[in-house]
């Protein structure tokens, strides 16, 4: 028997076995910070960075959920409209109960947001898994539905949050704890919980297996339907959390809330190193991806080299480069 029993060489291999997909996003982030500092000294100031990261929080939180969906082999185009829809329902609910419940309308509204998010995710998941419809098409459909619903609810205008709640709700977006803006703390917490689920729990294994090879998962006694549906529900919850943070920033729900977020979210996930065809999800990479997107926009505003009208173009170049790096590191 020549079975390997010594664990020392194994450990060493494991340490060296870091792929570009794993560390790429963080290297890119670091490089971006250096470049930014060279272009404009103010770039690295605590205020500017805190601002940028806070702004990236929505995309980061939603993209963490998208990491579940994409690594399980799905896709969700409806996240932007879903965010708008949840924001609308939440504000309407809060406004309705505010006269009776006062401040308590806020936590109650948050709970409603989470429940609506779960329901939206469940709907997406069931259409994709039980209905056996391509995720792209299924969520393209619900994307239209959510968007139309919020337009209908707002009557094409805006639903502002009740004056009596505005002041109390404000800190959720604008407040800080120990100097760190709350949205940043929330996105770090979301990412931490997500990475525990994805890397430490049984569900994470199932999710990766379903995404990597549906047949292997099925033949291993894993329910593909359940696993995928749960991923969509997680996505719904993440959208709800992002919406909860978002309400104080705008103070209203409008039909244009969250427009094109889905593209930014998918970009963040892919830059983060998660393969669009499914398999292993990279939660922290996704967060880095979301920050990178916002940093680029910020850099372009701060610098005079490139017009900020070209932000989308630069982001487009970034996603293509990210895909090329993935291909390169996979084909080795």
């Amino acid at each position, binding site marked *: *028997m*020549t*079975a*390997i*029993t010594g*664990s020392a*060489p*194994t450990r060493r*291999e*494991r340490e060296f*076995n870091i792929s570009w997909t794993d560390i790429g996003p963080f290297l890119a982030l670091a490089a971006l910070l250096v470049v930014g500092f060279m272009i404009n000294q103010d770039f690295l100031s605590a205020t500017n960075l805190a601002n940028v990261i806070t702004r990236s929080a929505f995309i980061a939180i939603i993209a963490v959920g998208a990491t579940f969906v994409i690594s399980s082999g799905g896709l969700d185009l409806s996240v932007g409209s879903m965010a708008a829809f949840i924001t609308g329902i939440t504000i309407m609910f809060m406004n309705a109960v505010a006269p009776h419940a006062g401040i308590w309308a806020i936590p109650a509204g948050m709970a409603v947001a989470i429940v609506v998010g779960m329901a939206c995710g469940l709907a997406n998941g069931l259409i994709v898994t039980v209905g056996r419809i391509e995720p792209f098409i299924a969520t393209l459909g619900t994307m239209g539905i959510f968007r139309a619903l919020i337009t209908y609810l707002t009557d094409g205008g805006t639903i502002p949050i009740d004056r009596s709640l505005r002041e109390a709700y404000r800190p959720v977006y604008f407040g800080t704890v120990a100097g760190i803006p709350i949205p940043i703390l929330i996105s770090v917490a979301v990412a931490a919980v997500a990475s*525990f689920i994805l890397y*430490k*729990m*049984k569900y*994470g*294994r*199932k999710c*990766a*297996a379903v995404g*990597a*090879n549906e*047949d*292997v*998962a*099925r*033949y*291993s*006694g*894993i*329910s593909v339907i359940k696993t995928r549906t749960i991923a969509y529900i997680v996505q719904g919850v993440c959208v709800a959390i992002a919406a909860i943070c978002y309400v104080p920033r705008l103070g209203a729900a409008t039909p244009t809330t969250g427009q094109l977020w889905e593209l930014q979210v998918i970009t963040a996930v892919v830059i983060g190193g998660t393969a669009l065809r499914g*398999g292993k999800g990279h939660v922290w990479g996704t967060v880095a991806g979301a920050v990178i997107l916002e940093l680029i926009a910020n850099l372009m505003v701060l610098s005079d080299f490139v017009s900020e009208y070209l932000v989308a173009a630069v982001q487009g170049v970034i996603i293509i480069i990210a895909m090329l790096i993935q291909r390169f590191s996979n084909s080795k």
Partner: protein
Amino acid sequence: MSLAANIVAEGGSTLRLGEAPGAAEPVLHAENLSKQYGPVTVLSDIKLDILPGEIHAIIGENGAGKSTLMRLLSGYVEPTRGSLSMGGVPVKFIRPAQAQNAGIALVHQEILLAEALTVADNLFLGRELSHGAVVDDRAMRRLAAEKLAQIGCMVSPTALVRDISLADRQMVQIARALLDDYRVVIFDEPTAVLTGDEVERLLEIVLQLKAHGTAVLYISHRLDEVQRIADKVTVLRDGKMVGTYPGKTLNQMDMARLMVGRELAALYPQKSAAPCGVPMLSVRNATVPGHAKDVSFTVHKGEILGFAGMIGAGRTELFEGIVGLRPATATVELEGKTVHFHSQRAAIDAGIGYLTEDRKGKGLLLHERLAPNLTLSALGAFHPGLAMGRRREAAALEVAVGTYDIRLKSLGAKAGQLSGGNQQKLLLAKVLLTDPSVVIIDEPTRGIDIANKAQIYAFIQGLVAKGKACIVISSEMQELIGICDRILVMREGRVTGEVSGETMTESNVALLATSGAKPMLVAEGETK
């Protein structure tokens, strides 16, 4: 010289075909045709003479190299060595189109038609009739209707291929090969998807071609068909030629023997003396729509039950149905209790392990490390709290690596980096990690080398020695005979017979698998 060839020689038939002097020149001649993929030789030194107006059958077990030979002859694969000539002129095919232009048509075993196009479109795909740049649909439809009528196929030329039956699709493929005047038409398992009348029609077409002076190469698992129509039979075994024999001199029994004849060394473990204990798994009237019908069997504690049959006989689908991987109806009793599995999970939890035949596609996550692969079916046993117990998993992997002698460079390797044999051992370890009492192993040794095969046979023997019941599905007859206590043979979704003890011979299994003939269940010694 192999045992089987000797038997035929003793049987009085001449081995080599003595051509009559001045016989027609071969339309297709192959000399020392060989094909290697890397270090693996799949076909070596094949000599063939195909005469005009002759039906030349090629037979052999799964993996004997028949399909590779066909691909070589029709330009889909380039030979590593050897040469081809047609009518005395050397030819070389690098692309299928070249073989086609030279007059060789191949009717594929798989249906290769564009489903969204019409029957006529498919018939003329790549060689459309046209006036200048405009295709002449009317002419193509008319001609298609003519050709289809000629072979007795009643589908409309304007029907979409996706709307017609599998048998009709096969007929359309055949019609494609008859569209031009080919000198050689190769049929690769043409009757695999056909039944009764359709087979008769196909054989008629083949005879028509022969009467027309076309040379026909006919590959089939169905020895009864071969016996009926073949003028010559070439037998392949393990990529080598056993010989070419005049069709009339071989009966099905001879053919089966020539196909399988080989020495069985100590590859197989000693069978246990008194294997049969109490019934463990009993299945009544299992039906998997489209694949298996009314299959009943019982496997006992300590028994290895084999399922033989050709590819497509429905064995895999039958067991996938029984363990809840595809829709099926069956009365299943596990250790005396009636059970029904709606999902593979339920089957695993009840104590039935199923090892898939498709190791790379359905068995292992090739890009994943070994430990997550090993524990994937048994995740529940590896999370003490909320989180997965990495240490438990690592320990389980070390045990599996030791127990099943999985050879690897490091424990951090990915499953795809293991050799086929080691992947198979990992898969076996994965299935056994759920501690099943009944283990169903589909193709235990497909594509792995002889040393790993012997080890896997020993593991299977070890399982039943521990009181488990084992079902082995295999397309390699000698493997089943080597390790099984009993063998059920399936053909076209039904069990055609059972062999055990004295009657468990390769020729009996081959006969049941190919022709479904029943009365020939006799022991090897009595047939001379």
